[in-house]
Each structure stands twice: as structure tokens, then as C-alpha cells.
């Protein structure tokens, strides 16, 4: 907990926007509101300041301090426009909290008016307290959700009564799509992590799944990546529908590759994939028929889970 909470908070101040934590309904006043009326506005709404709006635009901010200064100066007839602070420090609704924190720090104010980016219209006000409240809400929700997910996932096998249970996870892999490449392996790793897979095992599975997925992306029109989770072992299988490998033995040789030059320029197709898979698997087999397709199977034994 001690390590995860601060880092999650740190992430959140980059992830969450000002719009998510601000107060949306704001009491505003106009420039020609008299200072006398302002007192009533502040008293009845229990606020210590208000943005000043003219024709939908923020033109200033008036605070309790301005009000007191006005009183001290003899409380002569004056409007808000006479006593307000112009050139207000503001922040946009879509900015991350981290920017809000540093801006509050710089300007020394306790609150900032929040503007909408495209038209500079006032959409809310945000205070230091809002930041804390927003973070707490998010942390609590995020923490609970992940806990529940993990709990549910890691108890899948306990709750199913059978002589044998198998969990299949399948991911479609699109051929030649280098943008999406790796997303199957990434999602598989997340899912198996939630199931409580040990980190060392998870790393080996991630490497196998990634290399197998990349082979489908680089060399084929597409296929599937799947993981079969059983008591005692996890089997990764990668299937495609061609073109197939003419010489499997040769394909297994480290450094041997038939990848196109442009693919290699992206850092793929170094001819290390199958070798890497073999190194991470307890058992591996590769069946291929030219013109039909290739099936790669890699098995990892799960220590201590065998029944």
C-alpha cells in the first residue's frame, strides 16, 4: 500500500483533468453590481469571492479581501468593476491536475476560475480542496474495482466444481497491422496477471505471446493468439492461415528471417522470435504446411499448481 498509493496518486494528477474535480455551478456577479449588493451575494451564498462576468466573458474576480479593502477605504459608492482584480489567472477545463497544482503554487491563490478551451467561457471554479476530494474519490473507486477484479479472477478455479477446468483466452491478430501489433500479448498479460500468475511465469508468457503475435503480423494475413489455462500449465497457441513455412528447421535458426526490409527497419523480423519462444517455453512445437498455415504451441508448467 505504502508504495502503490503515492504512485497511483502521481499518475492520477496527470490523468485527471480540472473539469473532473471542479465545481460546475458558480455564483457570478456582473461588473456593474454595486459593492453593497455584493455583500448580500456573498452572505447568502456563503462564498468568499466570485468571478465577474460580462457578456459571457470572465472580466475579473472579486474577493472578500477586495470587499474588506473597500470597507476600510470608507465604503463609498462603488461597483464591482471598480474594486475587482483584473487579469485573472485561469485554467482550462481539459488541463491535467498537475498543471493546476503548479499554477496554484505559482500564483498563491486558493481558487481559480475554470474556462472552456474553445470559447473561453467560464464553466466552473476549482480549489485546492477540490483536488484532494477528486483524487480521493478516484483512488477509492479505482482501488476497489481492481481489488474486486483480482479477487474474482483469482478465484475462478475455486468456484468451479469439475474434475478439470480450462480457461481459454483468444485474441484476433490482424496481419500487417504494425499499429495494433502486440495488443493481443499485452491484453493476455493483463488478464493472466489478474488471475494471479507469478511474475516470472508472466514474463515468459509475455515474451512467447508477443513473438508469436509478431510472427502472425509480419508474415501472414492474420490469425489468432490463444492461451489455455489449466491446473498446472498454460499453453499458448498461435494459428494463422498461411502462407506457411517451407523449412521449419531453418526458420528456427537464430538470425534467419524472411522479413521485408521495411519491416526490419521498424526493428521487427530480426529472426530471433522463434528462438526467443523456445527459450521461454518448457515445450514448443511448430507445425506448418505451405499454402495452408502454421500452428505454434508453447507450454509453460505452473509450479506448485499441479493437482
Amino acid at each position: 500500500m505504502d508504495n502503490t498509493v503515492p504512485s497511483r496518486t502521481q499518475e492520477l494528477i496527470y490523468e485527471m483533468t480540472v473539469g473532473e474535480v471542479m465545481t460546475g455551478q458558480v455564483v457570478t456577479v456582473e461588473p456593474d453590481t454595486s459593492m453593497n449588493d455584493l455583500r448580500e451575494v456573498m452572505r447568502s451564498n456563503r462564498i468568499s469571492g466570485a468571478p465577474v462576468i460580462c457578456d459571457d466573458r470572465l472580466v475579473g474576480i472579486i474577493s472578500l479581501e477586495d470587499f474588506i479593502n473597500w470597507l476600510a477605504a470608507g465604503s463609498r459608492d462603488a461597483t464591482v468593476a471598480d474594486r475587482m482584480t483584473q487579469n485573472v489567472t485561469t485554467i482550462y477545463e481539459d488541463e491535467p491536475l498537475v498543471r493546476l497544482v503548479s499554477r496554484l503554487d505559482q500564483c498563491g491563490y486558493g481558487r481559480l476560475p475554470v474556462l472552456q478551451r474553445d470559447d473561453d467561457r467560464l464553466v466552473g471554479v476549482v480549489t485546492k480542496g477540490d483536488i484532494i476530494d477528486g483524487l480521493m474519490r478516484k483512488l477509492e473507486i479505482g482501488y476497489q474495482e481492481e481489488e474486486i477484479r483480482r479477487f474474482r479472477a483469482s478465484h475462478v478455479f475455486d468456484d468451479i466444481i469439475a474434475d478439470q477446468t480450462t480457461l481459454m483466452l483468444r485474441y484476433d491478430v490482424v496481419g500487417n497491422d504494425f499499429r495494433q501489433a502486440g495488443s493481443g500479448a499485452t491484453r493476455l498479460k493483463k488478464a493472466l496477471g489478474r488471475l494471479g500468475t507469478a511474475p516470472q511465469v508472466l514474463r515468459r508468457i509475455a515474451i512467447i505471446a508477443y513473438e508469436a503475435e509478431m510472427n502472425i503480423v509480419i508474415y501472414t494475413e492474420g490469425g489468432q493468439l490463444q492461451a489455455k489455462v489449466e491446473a498446472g500449465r498454460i499453453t499458448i497457441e498461435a494459428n494463422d492461415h498461411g502462407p506457411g513455412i517451407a523449412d521449419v528447421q531453418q526458420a528456427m535458426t537464430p538470425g534467419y528471417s524472411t522479413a521485408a526490409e521495411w519491416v526490419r527497419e521498424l526493428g521487427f523480423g530480426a529472426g530471433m522470435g522463434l528462438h526467443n519462444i523456445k527459450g521461454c517455453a518448457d515445450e514448443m512445437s511448430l507445425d506448418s504446411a505451405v499454402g495452408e498455415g502454421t500452428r505454434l504451441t508453447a507450454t509453460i508448467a505452473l509450479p506448485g499448481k499441479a493437482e
Partner: protein
Amino acid sequence: MNVSDLVQRAELAVKAGAGGLDAEVTGGYASDLLSAVMANAVEGNVWVTWHAHPNIVAVALLVKLSAIILVAGRQPEDETAEKAEQEGVPILVSSLPAFELVGRLHAMGVAGAT
């Protein structure tokens, strides 16, 4: 040493994934072959590379690297930055060429596995 210490000491620009800046740096690995990174980089390593395409984020996630450092002022592609931001993988940019950067990182105590 964590990633943000490295950012300061090696004068790196944080381009995405600032959420991961407090991760501990266990060492470094440099290669432009993704398979080599998958096979050899150690959890928590920073990865020095020339590649800026989105797949580098997947590689970093899969082997749990602490950060990706792009050399020679390379900028991450938009999609790369977006993914990195989502996943909290810091993408850092150095204006130095790879050889020079790795030398300096090493002098700071960021070592590779031998």
C-alpha cells in the same frame, strides 16, 4: 535511482507517461531489435532506442521496462505518446546520439546486465 532522477541528471525531455516517473531504474538496455529487447532487457531497465513507433510501448509493457529513451532528438509518434500516456510508460527524449547517451547513463551508474 528512479526515472525522474534520470530525467534530471541526463537532461531528458518527458514526452509521455509521466505517471511512471517514480519507477525504480534497475539498469539499462540498448537495441533497435525488438526481439533482442524482449529477450534480454531486465525488468525495470530503461531502454535506449531509435524507434518511435507505437510498438515500443507494447515491448516496454511486456517486459516491464521503467522507461523508453529515444535518442538523437527523435520524437514519439502521436499514437506512441498516446499509448504510453494511457499505460504510464515514460517516453523520454535525449538530444544526444545513442552512443554518447549510453556512455553518460553508464557513468551515472545505470548499467547493463553482463
